[in-house]
């Protein structure tokens, strides 16, 4: 069975999702255990695969036993293995968290919610570990469809947000597919490694240039890069809290990963249109960082503020790709990890506050530090990490980005990083001030009856992610030297 680990990463959540409605129909109590168990198995397989890959080098798994250019293969290397561990971990945490939110629902709604959640997880995992360009599209659509439905289940406004996301997301996916079509037309292959090989003599071909453009636009739409971010704020704001936490945490990052995979592994020959595309990306990211941060300052709804902050943060990742040297790429990948943990943690906090007080506006966060000390502690850590203060994880990814920018001599990018840190500080300290400094409003904290500030199933994930941010921050050096160093192109073994 050990040889089957790469397949298990995706297959276990996928197949569990298929029988989830049946399980919900038979026994709603069993449901959560089964779902959590499936994601746990997936997470353990991903960890096992990653450990083996770190020891022995990339691992290829052939579906149906067919050799790569003809069949589909999964490729686990340190980068995709690390991403798989990250995705399944966040998914596991949020699955635990989602329990109380669904308590009062019918078996049908519960079953479908969990099935879609598992499909979203499986889709994102499949996108990360696959070595086949078309297989990536199929899993992209699985994850996207599940995400549309999950977002739409959040209420009236969420329906409109989900519809808009569906239209724009499908346009993005079509761009991606047409890009793959262009690549197929000039190479005749769909396997990524084979594509990389066969594209080498073709870097000047106009068709390849168009393919680069198509993939760029498609993935930029999917990851909400600045001029194409229109769908993101509404979707994140109105999605139900568990879905929002998971989608905001990993979904856009997976698209960024796909961009990284294509630009630095498939189009690895650095002549031709790729550097030009990266320059354009870099400027779009820089403008996006500033505009996203400024828009975040203007918001009064906590979730909408986080959504605009996501637009800014995805800019950091793309900025790292645009810098393109070793430090830049390490910064980008490290920021994928950090931002996934931080943003999930913040959205979990937002959901917890909504649970407790029923409110989302920042004003209502006043003096919550008494009522919810642990939750607000996690929030404080996550917020400081978003700003980028040293012991937390967020500092180190920005540090690597800045190092990369200095090495490449790209001074405007450094100015953008520093300026955006200040802007981040402005909007997060506003919330921190409300939480810790403000006196409680007219309504005194009526020593709420249930002794716990939140149900344990919700509190545990929040605290876990909050601690996780600190741990990543403290262990950042070993993460970089043990995993990321081999994950980035040119550093592999």
């Amino acid at each position, binding site marked *: *069975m050990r040889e*089957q680990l790469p*397949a298990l990463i995706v*297959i276990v959540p*996928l*197949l569990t*999702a*298929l*029988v*989830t*409605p*049946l399980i919900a*129909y038979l026994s709603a109590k069993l449901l959560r255990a089964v779902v959590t168990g499936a994601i746990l198995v997936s997470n353990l397989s991903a960890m096992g695969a990653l450990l083996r890959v770190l020891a022995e080098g990339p691992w290829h*798994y*052939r*579906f*149906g*036993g067919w050799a790569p250019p003809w069949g589909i293969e999964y490729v686990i290397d340190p980068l995709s293995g690390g991403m798989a561990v990250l995705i399944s971990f966040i998914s596991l945490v949020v699955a635990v968290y989602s329990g109380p939110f669904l308590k009062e629902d019918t078996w*049908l709604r519960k079953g*479908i919610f969990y*099935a879609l959640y598992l499909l979203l997880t499986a889709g994102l995992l499949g996108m990360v570990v696959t070595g086949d360009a078309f297989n990536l599209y199929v899993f992209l659509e699985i994850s996207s469809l599940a995400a549309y439905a999950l977002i739409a289940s959040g209420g009236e406004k969420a329906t409109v947000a989900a519809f808009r996301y569906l239209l724009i997301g499908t346009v993005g996916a079509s761009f991606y597919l047409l890009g793959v079509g262009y690549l197929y037309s000039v190479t005749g292959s769909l396997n990524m490694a084979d594509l990389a090989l066969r594209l080498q003599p073709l870097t000047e071909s106009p068709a390849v240039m168009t393919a680069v453009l198509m993939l760029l636009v498609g993935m930029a739409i999917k990851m909400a890069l600045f001029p194409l971010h229109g769908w993101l704020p509404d979707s994140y704001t109105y999605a139900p809290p568990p879905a929002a936490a998971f989608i905001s945490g990993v979904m856009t990052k997976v698209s960024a990963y796909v961009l990284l995979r294509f630009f630095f592994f498939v189009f690895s020959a650095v002549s031709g249109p790729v550097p030009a595309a990266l320059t354009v990306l870099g400027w779009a990211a820089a403008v996006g960082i500033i505009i996203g941060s400024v828009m975040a300052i203007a918001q009064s709804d906590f979730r909408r503020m986080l959504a605009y902050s996501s637009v800014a943060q995805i800019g950091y990742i793309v900025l790292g790709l645009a810098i393109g040297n070793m430090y830049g790429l390490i910064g980008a990948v490290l920021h994928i990890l950090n931002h996934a943990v931080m943003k999930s943690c913040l959205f979990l906090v937002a959901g917890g506050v909504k649970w407790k007080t029923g409110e989302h506006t920042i004003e209502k966060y006043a003096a919550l530090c008494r009522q919810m000390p642990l939750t607000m502690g996690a929030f404080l850590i996550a917020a400081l990490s978003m700003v980028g203060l040293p012991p937390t994880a967020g500092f180190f990814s920005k540090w690597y980005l800045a190092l990369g920018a200095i090495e490449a001599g790209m001074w405007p990018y450094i100015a953008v990083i520093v300026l955006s840190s200040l802007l981040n500080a402005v909007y997060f300290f506003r919330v921190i001030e409300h939480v810790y400094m403000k006196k409680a409003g007219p309504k005194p904290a009526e020593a709420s009856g249930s002794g716990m500030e939140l149900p344990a199933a919700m509190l545990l994930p929040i605290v876990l992610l909050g601690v996780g941010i600190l741990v990543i921050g403290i262990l950042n050096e070993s993460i970089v030297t043990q995993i990321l160093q081999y994950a980035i192109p040119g550093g592999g073994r």
Partner: protein
Amino acid sequence: MNRRFGTIVLGTAFRFLVPFIMVYGMYVLMHGEYSPGGGFQAGALFGIAVVLDRLVQGEEAMLSISGTKAVILAGIGTFIYGFIGVLTVLLNGNFLEYGVFPLDMIEGERHALGILGIEIGVTICVMATIIAIFDALTRREEW
């Protein structure tokens, strides 16, 4: 769609038509290897047969499956597909490697058997999904 809208002519005509559609679906499923066709097309035909029956007969439809049950059925259909993959894994092959079935056949026939198995899964899934979507779109009393 709980109310029948068929007149007696429509009702009689469709009562004849539905079995033929189902037989045709069966043919498309079984013959998918040799001619255009396969699980998706067969599933669509089966789904159409059930939907037609529901449209014409309304409440009295013989092939009535409710939308919620249909979703479960769709999951099971896809699970059959996945389960064949799991079976090949348990037989020490890779996922969906049909060649490992311990049957006394030549390589090609084992693959053909595997293909037929997954096509059945696909058929059930597509049929059930069409019914589920039809049911969700037409049922209004809960609103």
